[in-house]
């Protein structure tokens, strides 16, 4: 090489380095709608966790003398057809809805990440077989199967966690597999293998952490979709069973008396919409922040 080549390169001012996560956080902070989503979510989580403790009513306290009352000082959101306080029920229902969303997502996360990582890491026949299975499951009318499952078997809330988690891992598996495929041939993985690190160790310590960006984004977007599915099933009477309430069951109860007691539907319905709205905005914001290439502009 010519001597001249290396002169003066140091004159170009250095680019300030920052990690992927710091960068992402900076971008997320700039996204007003996503930050609004975070704030609303925090408020909803706090209020639905602690709110019911402060109320003198409980979610299953029936008072038939005071059924279907409009909102008042005593019952801010009014009462339902059994005289139960709608505010407390909405908050307790929020707990259930959020819990279903989070647990079902966790289930789908564990299955999807493991499945995708194994498929992508081993490649070849194993990958082909595993992905073919995913393709077949994809082509099933899964919501109909879920309905059949819930209608024919038990309608417990645990069933809901697993069924909803069990049907939403497919996309996660595909995302992880794609990421793993592109990462596994990079040099640092070769290096780990060369020094004799065991395969599961490589997968969990090296491969998975490097697939996190898209996985986090997809996880955030799975929570609202699981919540939506729960509400959908509860609305059809197949999800959460009385006396327990979720937003879906409350809307279902409210629909019957919509002409006379609209508040029975409006409060839980709107709260649910606001929550999903916030989660979706947060998910969108995270996608823009974590994966600039995936940006939708």
């Amino acid at each position, binding site marked *: *090489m*010519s001597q*001249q*080549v*290396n*002169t*003066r*390169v140091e*004159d*170009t*001012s250095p680019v300030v380095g920052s990690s992927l996560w710091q960068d992402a956080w900076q971008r997320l902070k700039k996204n007003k709608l996503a930050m609004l989503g975070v704030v609303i979510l925090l408020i909803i989580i706090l209020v639905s966790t602690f709110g019911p403790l402060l109320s003198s009513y409980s979610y299953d306290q029936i008072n038939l003398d005071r059924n279907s009352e409009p909102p008042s000082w005593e019952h801010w959101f009014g009462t339902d057809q059994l005289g139960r306080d709608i505010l407390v029920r909405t908050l307790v229902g929020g707990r259930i809805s959020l819990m279903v969303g989070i647990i079902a997502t966790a289930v789908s996360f564990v299955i999807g990440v493991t499945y995708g990582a194994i498929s992508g890491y081993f490649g070849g026949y194993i990958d082909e077989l595993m992905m073919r299975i995913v393709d077949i499951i994809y082509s099933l009318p899964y919501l109909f199967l879920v309905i059949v499952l819930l209608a024919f078997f038990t309608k417990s809330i645990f069933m809901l966690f697993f069924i909803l988690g069990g049907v939403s891992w497919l996309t996660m598996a595909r995302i992880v597999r794609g990421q793993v495929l592109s990462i596994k041939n990079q040099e640092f993985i070769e290096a780990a293998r060369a020094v004799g690190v065991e395969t599961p160790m490589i997968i969990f310590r090296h491969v998975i952490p490097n697939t996190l960006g898209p996985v986090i984004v997809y996880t955030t977007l799975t929570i609202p979709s699981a919540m939506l599915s729960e509400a959908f099933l509860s609305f059809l009477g197949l999800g959460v069973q009385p006396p327990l309430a979720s937003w879906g069951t409350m809307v279902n109860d409210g629909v019957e008396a919509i002409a006379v007691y609209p508040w029975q539907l409006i409060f839980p319905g709107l709260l649910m919409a606001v929550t999903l709205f916030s989660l979706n905005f947060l998910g969108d914001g995270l996608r823009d922040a974590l994966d600039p290439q995936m940006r939708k502009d």
Partner: protein
Amino acid sequence: MSTNIILSVRNLQTYFYGDGSVVKAVDGVSFELKKGETLGIVGESGSGKSVTSLSILRLIAYPPGKIIGGEVVFDNKDLMKLSESEIRRIRGKRIAMIFQDPMTSLNPFMTIGAQLKEITELHEGLSSSQARKKAIEMLELVGISDASRRIDDYPHQFSGGMRQRVMIAMALSCKPELLIADEPTTALDVTIQAQILELIKGLKEKIGTSVILITHDLGIVAGMTDHIAVMYAGKIVEYAPTEELFSTPHHPYTKGLLKSVPDPMTDQKQLFQIPGLPPDLSRLPKGCPFSPRCSNVKAECQEFPPIKQINANHYSACWLEN
């Protein structure tokens, strides 16, 4: 002003705005082009040569880019002042463009026939069947064999060189007075490059078009152009007749460029490289933008060098004495 001049660009400025910074991609570019001549614009990537050519037809997307000043006089009209519909009547008809990457510059969803036809239907008012005849004629002219059959093919069914021929056929359909070729051969194989350049040269004579040829490769402009403008960091740093630029370059950057063209005649052991990196246009040094890489830096270089006339046709923006 001589009527012999077809295009006159004066103090053109095109800036790009993003995340609080301004990139002065083209910053005060001026040049003239005589009727029937070919001008080469040469520079590294990011020197502003492509932005200059896009600015002439106002094809800069806003945001992020914006033409903030200057004149582009074509046929006694300042193109910058025309209405949208007036400039559209010039685009494709009187000034046509060929782009760098023929793989992506043709619409993959439309047959090449449809893409060729729409330009003559629009500007010449041809009927669909006339336009088809014209399209086949143009394809034959650029050397596509079996044109009447291939006209219904899609771009992906053509090779890169063939696609660039299609682009040329499209650009020349309306016999434009000016053809702007933006790196027309960069994406092609070396053997194809020569064919495409010969084709442009031949058709230029035939149709009588003036040409602006933009490239980063001095070897390409040598046999093609009458004048050469060398661009660096958004400015023209040297302008001269082709032969003179090659024989007596003035600006240190031009000299560096010329030295980095491999010459099989001399027994070079290693290739020359201009030291340093192309400048970051959002953080230009004070004064002469080339000074950080220049081997003849002087105290004056802290100031921006004015463009100096060296002789009748030769200009250079450098503090160096002859």
